[in-house]
């Protein structure tokens, strides 16, 4: 369960304070599937970063499975990013010099465990996203859709309970976008919390809940 109360994120740009999030209350129960909509600059990415423990709120409280995140050490946050959260970025963010398989292995390296098991699981995950035959390819040798599926496989490496995707289809054409979204549907069916940031209303329509942001605030929260 995810619970944000009065969360603000203020960036300091020299002397000016830029508020990316101006006070958000948001509660996401386990196994919810929701999309976050909003114009550019409304704070969607910032919100996702906070939920994914890539960043911490300037103000307010964020409880992840009942635990206040602000009290956690950097190592504990790293463990949350490693095991609880799977993050998918718009720009894939794969290691350019590593193969698809090695990219998927990366979170498992930081978790620890045997190299053989790691390799086996990475192979299985790639097969699951339909890239079983691309394991030895480097990101530059893959199409955008394939790269994003590698990134999803990586996000799933340590079986997270929360999957966060920040415009996962933003750099993809509609066909490969659909393939990617199907993977998220499956993850939801398997019991994960799935949150997708998107500009695409077609994608948003698939999810049972839609949260709309504007100027760093939640302006609409629709449950269907």
């Amino acid at each position, binding site marked *: 369960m995810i619970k944000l109360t009065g969360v603000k994120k203020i960036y300091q740009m020299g002397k000016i304070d830029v508020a990316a999030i101006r006070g958000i209350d948001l509660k996401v129960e386990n196994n919810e599937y929701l999309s976050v909509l909003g114009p550019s600059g409304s704070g969607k990415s910032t919100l996702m970063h906070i939920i994914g423990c890539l960043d911490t709120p300037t103000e307010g409280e964020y409880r992840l499975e009942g635990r206040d995140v602000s009290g956690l050490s950097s190592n504990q946050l790293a463990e949350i990013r490693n095991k609880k959260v799977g993050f998918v970025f718009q720009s894939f963010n794969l290691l350019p010099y590593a193969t698809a398989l090695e990219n998927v292995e990366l979170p498992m390296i*930081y978790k620890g465990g045997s190299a053989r098991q790691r390799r086996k699981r990475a192979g299985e995950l790639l097969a699951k996203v339909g890239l079983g035959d691309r394991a030895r390819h480097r990101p530059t040798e893959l199409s955008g859709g394939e790269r994003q599926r590698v990134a999803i496989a990586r996000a799933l490496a340590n079986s997270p309970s929360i999957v966060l995707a920040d415009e996962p289809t933003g750099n993809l054409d509609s066909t490969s976008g659909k393939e990617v979204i199907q993977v998220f549907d499956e993850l939801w069916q398997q019991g994960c919390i799935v949150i997708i940031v998107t500009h695409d209303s077609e994608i948003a329509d698939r999810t049972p809940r839609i949260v709309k942001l504007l100027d760093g605030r939640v302006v609409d929260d629709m449950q269907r």
Partner: protein
Amino acid sequence: MINLQQFFRELKKERTRILLTILAIVWGTASVVIMLAIGEGVTRGLQRGMHGMGKGIVVVWSGETSKPFKGLGIGRRIHLREEDARMLQEQIPGIGLMSPEYIRWGAYFTWNDHSMSTRATGVYPAYGQLRNIYPQKGGRFLNKLDLKSRRRVVFLGNEVKERLFGDKEAVGETVYLNRVPFTVIGVLKKKLQTSCYSGMDQDATFIPASTFRVMFGHRHLNDIVYSPRDISRAKQVKEQVYQVMGKKYKFDPKDKDTLRMWDTIEMQEGFGKVSTGVRIFLGIIGGLTLIVAGVGLANIMYAVIRNRTREIGIKIAVGAKRRNIITEYILQSLLTVSAGGAIGLGFSWSLVKVINIIPLKQEAFQYLGRPVMSVTTALITAGVLGLVGFLAGIFPARRAASVNPVDALRCE
């Protein structure tokens, strides 16, 4: 381990930079190692030369009193006699080996139609060991029986033998010393001798002290040579020599002019300090070179990390802890240093080998010695390299670990 693979991939990307650093470390390592090797060689060479006269010995000559003592005036000559030498050895247990030394200048030697005049020295058998006088193959130095039976036997300095015999075999031949026949029992094995008193051993001849006394009738010794049993007690033994002699000849044991002494132990201690100093100096210079290389490496590591910010951000985003990132970059730094260090050590080692293969007969090399690559040098260098690699890695690595993933992933 993926770390290593990544290292080699990054190495490919940063090829020029990393190669340059490796080169700097090769250079640093080689200069440390070679300098230390040359220093070690010179030290050993000089030491060997010093030991040519004897290792840990004290030479005692006669002197004059310079302090009044029990009504006796100053300027009294204190002569050394063979009995004194024996008395010293009997009364001072701290004396290990001892030999009196008579010297006759201009002793006239002939063999067949060759002749020369040089010095004849009358000594005890212990003299050989004291003064590092070793015979060439087939010969021997004086022994107890020679001394006891006043044998007319002579041990020749290698130069003397050369002058009289040339290439011919000398041992067993009869030479005439002032027209008295002497059997040659041995010839000095050529040695490096950089310090001496009364001339070099290669130009001397040695006969039993007993024979000498009969032949030349000297009453006084030229000097006494002894070695303390225990080098650390050398000072006390010296004091005892003054006391024993002072008692017999009635002089103040504190009057150091009565006996003149040359203490090679002191000299060697001094030399040891100087050579340690030189080694430290060379080590510091080499170390500085390495530190400069280390600073270069740290710079490159900073650059690598700047170029890798995004990848570091990715790693942090998927759960890398501070220590994962830090270890990775320290490892990278250590690997670079190891590569450079290994090449540098290998290079220096081969260079030292090559220098040592070249046949150099020149005097200079005998005195300076040949470079010596000691295990200690290699280990110290490896240790310093490890430290340099660690330090050059730790600071950039810490910066890498504090990359903010959100910022790192934003920059396109």
